[in-house]
């Protein structure tokens, strides 16, 4: 009875590829790759109605953007009319003029322009004011966006988007002018991005919809 040494029979693994493929396809079906995108906003803190403190903002610092239930837009004192494309261009242009206090909003008709406070925004002081001491910031400006209960959400987002676009256009111009770079968080250093944000602080207030 001589024992023969036998090799353990190897497991047939030709089907493990099929197995892995099945798993792969399962994961392809039940998962999704798209990352969520959106317009990020910070809501104001909730204050009980009897404690609302009517903050005193000078009229010249506010740009009212109103959109009613028929989706008609009023910006400052003028209606914004025309096709969606031309509306967008008008909104963006007006918002840019307001933030920089130029054109229609030059001088007393626009927001107050202040000198940079080196303590509050050291990055801006170091990187931009040192290059161009004439820089002024519309620090206390507010773009107040008011909607109606019947306003369509699509119109509202169109407005929000154009207002954000106005800020981004300005920041892009400044990035090119002072840093010779694109306004892109990945290209700019942290300090540079912070300086640009302080130069054009985004101040969009979303007032409550009115009945």
């Amino acid at each position: 009875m001589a024992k023969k040494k036998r090799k353990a029979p190897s497991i047939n693994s030709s089907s493990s590829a099929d197995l892995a493929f099945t798993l792969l396809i399962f994961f392809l079906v039940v998962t999704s790759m798209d990352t969520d995108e959106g317009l990020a906003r910070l809501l104001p803190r909730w204050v009980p109605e009897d404690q609302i403190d009517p903050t005193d903002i000078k009229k010249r610092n506010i740009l009212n953007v109103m959109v009613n239930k028929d989706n008609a837009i009023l910006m400052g004192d003028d209606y914004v009319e025309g096709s969606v494309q031309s509306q967008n261009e008008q909104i963006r242009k007006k918002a840019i003029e307001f933030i920089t206090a130029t054109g229609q909003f030059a001088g007393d008709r626009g927001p107050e322009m202040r000198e940079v406070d080196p303590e509050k925004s050291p990055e801006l002081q170091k990187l931009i004011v040192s290059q161009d001491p004439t820089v002024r910031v519309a620090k206390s400006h507010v773009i107040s966006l008011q909607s109606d209960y019947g306003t369509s959400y699509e119109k509202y987002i169109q407005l929000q988007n154009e207002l954000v676009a106005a800020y981004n256009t300005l920041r892009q111009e400044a990035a090119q002018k002072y840093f010779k770079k694109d306004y892109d968080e990945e290209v700019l250093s942290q300090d540079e991005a912070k300086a640009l944000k302080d130069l054009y602080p985004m101040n969009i207030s979303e007032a409550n919809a009115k009945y």
Partner: protein
Amino acid sequence: MSKFNKGEKRGMPELNTSSLPDLVFSILFFFMCVTHMREDTPIVKVNTPRADQVTKLENKSLVTTVLIGKPRDTRRGSEDLIQFNDDFLDMKNVQATMEAARESMKEADRPKMQISMKIDRDCKMGIVTELKQELRKAQCLKISYAAKK
């Protein structure tokens, strides 16, 4: 006497497929890493509006999603409704639900909680504004209007 003997007829050599499973497994692991489970099935119709200034939401684990749209099930009527976690959410329960959602997060992440609002483009602002008020009451101040490019 040629070195390249073509005397014998040889068949096509068989391709070695023993590494194929490894290959497929590595693709599988890649997909498992970069994708995430599809969220709960929407019970409201949501077609988000277009916007070209959108930014990406940084961290998935910080994001809570709320949907607003018309219900897919026509028996629920044609009014815009709020969906949260596979079920309709009543406006008066928003505050409690959001506070509970925040409680379930890690303590360090709670202040960073972000609400992604996926709202149908045909919605009216009324319900959106009411929801925003409720979110403010629940101290969920970081929001994002979902939009596509």
